[in-house]
């Protein structure tokens, strides 16, 4: 059994995962491998997932070892922001050609690493393995090891070839690369009693900057973010944190659990989306930090901050309540946790007519059921055709989803708001939920909807003629 296979098998029986806990022993041993259906599959591959998880490390050069498809077709497509270095936005790839397939791509990879060090000199290089070199047997780990030794610089292999599995698995394989090669390799300059890690926060369109001032005000220092706006050094010295928050469902649960085991960093699962969730996160982290030696007044200061921020957010949301009351939302997302958005939208009086639970855990399901009072509106899958039908039949006033289904909504002439990781609006924190509601309001009340839904004059005549023929 290959090392990669073993690694994948261990990730598929993740003990920290609530879904796994809920399974019988036998089912748990089988793992959560979901075979993909040829001709009816959608979604990214493991390489895609690894890249999503790690590319937000902004000062590192991300080098994709593979043919042009893997990087050439996909680079520069995610809006994760950096407060400093821009190295992560450069697309590096070995662009393997026929010659490399026949003779192996290891030499080209080594030379590529050398070129990057000579030209860019980043603090580290992440090398992503892809299907083709994995299949022809390129030893990426070996090349990275040799390059690290030769150039005296961390060259980190990320072994997540696309055909290993889904995007979600790829997130975790990306996390494994950090655990194996980066975390714990550098000591921080200093530590405090309030150092935390954020796991699964990517700083999409800079949204973490809406949350960071809250931590700053409380004196909580974010030692490392996995991996939004992160520096290599942050991740490498993250093992000295006192506590961690695991965000983004369970994309990087393996990092949270293993850092708990190895470095005794307790964690909890939280979310920055929605007022209640944001407050809950702040409460839990301050409580956890006090247990770990933080000043005893932290919870009280946290409560004061929460009270102030919640009041401010509610005041901002007030103007939307009459405008959005009773508006029906179809929520279709995997990344941003469904239940936290569900509760937030209900807070302003919107009605949820459906929500997808594709990437959600049993816990999430229970929470959604609790919030909505029923599980009748949960979808595991909603094929585009079905989604279109719902919208066309006016079963919802607005759809919230990822970019891929944007045009299903628009073709059904239905307002649409983007909420997944390619989005252009910062949705995190107290500010974020106000932004989301403002975006929904802006979409719903745009004057185009009435115009584009109006049939052409000659079609109206036809409809009327048909109508009168029926009556006659």
């Amino acid at each position, binding site marked *: 059994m290959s090392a990669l296979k073993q690694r994948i098998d261990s990730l598929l029986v993740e003990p920290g995962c609530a879904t796994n806990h809920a399974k019988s022993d036998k089912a748990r041993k089988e793992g959560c491998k979901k075979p993909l259906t040829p001709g009816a599959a959608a979604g990214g*591959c493991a390489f895609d997932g690894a890249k999503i998880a790690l590319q937000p490390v902004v000062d590192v050069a991300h080098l994709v070892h593979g043919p042009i498809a893997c990087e050439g077709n996909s680079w520069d497509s995610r809006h994760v922001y950096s407060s400093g270095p821009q190295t992560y936005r450069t697309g*590096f790839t070995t662009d393997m050609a026929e010659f490399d397939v026949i003779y192996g791509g290891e030499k080209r990879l080594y030379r590529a690493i050398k070129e990057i060090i000579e030209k860019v000199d980043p603090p580290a290089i992440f090398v992503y393995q892809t299907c083709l070199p994995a299949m022809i047997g390129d030893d990426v780990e070996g090349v990275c090891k040799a390059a690290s030794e030769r150039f005296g610089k961390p060259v980190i292999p990320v072994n997540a070839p696309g055909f290993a599995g889904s995007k979600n698995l790829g997130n975790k394989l990306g996390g494994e690369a950090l655990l194996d090669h980066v975390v714990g390799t550098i000591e921080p300059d200093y530590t405090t009693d309030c150092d935390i890690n954020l796991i699964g926060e990517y700083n999409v369109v800079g949204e973490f900057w809406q949350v960071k001032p809250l931590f700053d005000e409380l004196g909580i220092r974010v030692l490392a973010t996995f991996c939004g706006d992160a520096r290599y050094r942050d991740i490498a010295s993250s093992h000295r944190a006192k506590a961690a928050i695991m965000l983004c469902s369970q994309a990087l649960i393996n990092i949270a659990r293993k850092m708990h085991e190895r470095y005794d960093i307790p964690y909890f699962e939280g979310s920055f989306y929605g007022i209640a969730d944001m407050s809950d996160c702040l409460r839990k982290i301050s409580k956890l930090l006090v247990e770990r030696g933080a000043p005893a007044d932290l919870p009280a200061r946290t409560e004061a901050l929460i009270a102030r921020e919640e009041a401010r957010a509610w005041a901002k949301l007030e103007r939307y309540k009459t405008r959005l009351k009773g508006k029906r939302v179809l929520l279709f997302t995997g990344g941003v946790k469904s239940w936290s958005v569900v509760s937030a939208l209900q807070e302003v009086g919107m009605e949820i007519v459906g929500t997808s639970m594709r990437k959600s855990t049993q816990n999430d399901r229970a929470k959604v059921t609790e919030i909505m009072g029923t599980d009748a509106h949960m979808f595991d899958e909603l094929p585009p055709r079905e989604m279109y039908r719902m919208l066309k039949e006016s079963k919802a006033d607005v759809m919230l989803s990822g970019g891929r289904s944007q045009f299903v909504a628009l073709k059904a002439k239905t307002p649409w708001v983007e909420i997944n990781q390619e989005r252009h609006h910062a949705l995190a924190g107290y500010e974020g939920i106000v932004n989301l509601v403002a975006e929904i309001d802006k979409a719903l009340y745009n004057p185009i909807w009435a115009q584009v839904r109006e049939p052409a004059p000659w079609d109206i005549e036809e409809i009327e003629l048909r109508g009168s023929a029926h009556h006659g």
Partner: protein
Amino acid sequence: MAEVIAGKKACTVNPLKMSAPIGAALAFLGMERALPLLHGSQGCTAFGLVLFVRHFRETIPLQTTAMSEVTTILGGLENVEQALLNIKKRADPALIGVCSTGITEAKGDDVAGFLKLIRDKHPELEGTEVVFAPTPDFVGGFSDGWARAVTAMIDALVPRTKVRTPWQVNILAGCHLTPGDVEEIRETVEAFGLRPIILPDLSGSLDGHIPETFLPHTLGGTRLEDVREMGSSALTIAIGEQMRPAAELLEKKTGVPLRVFDRLTGLAACDAFIALLADLSECEVPAKYRRQRSQLQDAMLDGHFYFGEQKVAIAAEPDLLFTLSHFFADMGATVTCAVAPQEAPVLARVASETVRIGDLGDFEQHAGGCDLLVTHSHGRQAAARLGIPFWRAGLPTFDRLGVAHKVSVGYRGTRDLVFEVGNVFMEQLHAHEQHITPSALHSAPPVDAPAGAGH
């Protein structure tokens, strides 16, 4: 004649190139009731899908055989079989275009053989054509994949015939043409009383229209029954050198003579095209085109002040690079930096001293000192760093609206292109003028934000 310089780097920096399989997939998307199927891991499809959705702002039907590590090693027969059956059941398309990828080609999957076996075994696939385009990711690039798919369709779908229909013309459209360009070409050909069969026809499928219902395959595009009639046309007009092999295959199969137009942008090129249509149809050139020709002449007169001696850097797919380089040369500008993502015979004829096979890293390195950058949206980072005005051309253009409707072929298209690019030059002229005031001469001029550059 341009000297073509091959790249020597091991590491591509900021790719200009895209892969052959998605080029082939886009060609299949120009067919009516079609669904392209990439034979590879699901990421191959997902990346292509996202790329096209961002560029066209449309739903894109695109499927995958979802190969895993194990099925790759064992061979993909079963995955191809299952994919075809699932697609047939769910979408019932008229055409499934199968494109191979890097792993399935390196493994050596005999897809053509698979398809024979699957066809024999499953009569329920009746009514759906399946065409295979071999497109390993590690050979060539986007336009090569497109050309492969068109050649494969001609090979598989056009029967040999001796019938001739004198008013029928084949148009083989290269991947550098927008849906708007294709529409313009169709209207022009039809204006001469000729019947064009356009392959592939993105103007029907990806022109941004609203269908009445949701379809899991393309709506609009070249109809299969029209492809089958291509053998009886009077002439094949190939637009772009990339279409030459497909036109030659068609000639070999059916005897339809061919004429390759390496571009349809620019006065002389348009003249040749219109004259050919007049000849073929034995019609007078309609007044409309005489008028448009005059408008283009006028646009060139008005615009040449702003193009003269401007230095331009272009990075684009080979036929687009060829077209744009000659457009700029025709207007008096000089292409001082030309970069193509992959080799192509047409590159030797690009209007520039040299053409580099390379990436946007090379582009950025050699474009310094130019007055204008021309490439697809990925050039935005280089434009921001260099502080040079940036005019977007090619796929993907994900940060501008209406890219499908941009027209740069024909008299009218060339006229509008002169205006659009001329305006970019003119804006710079005005931006500089503002700084040449007596006070500005004594203090440091403010740093000017590059027009059109940015996030």
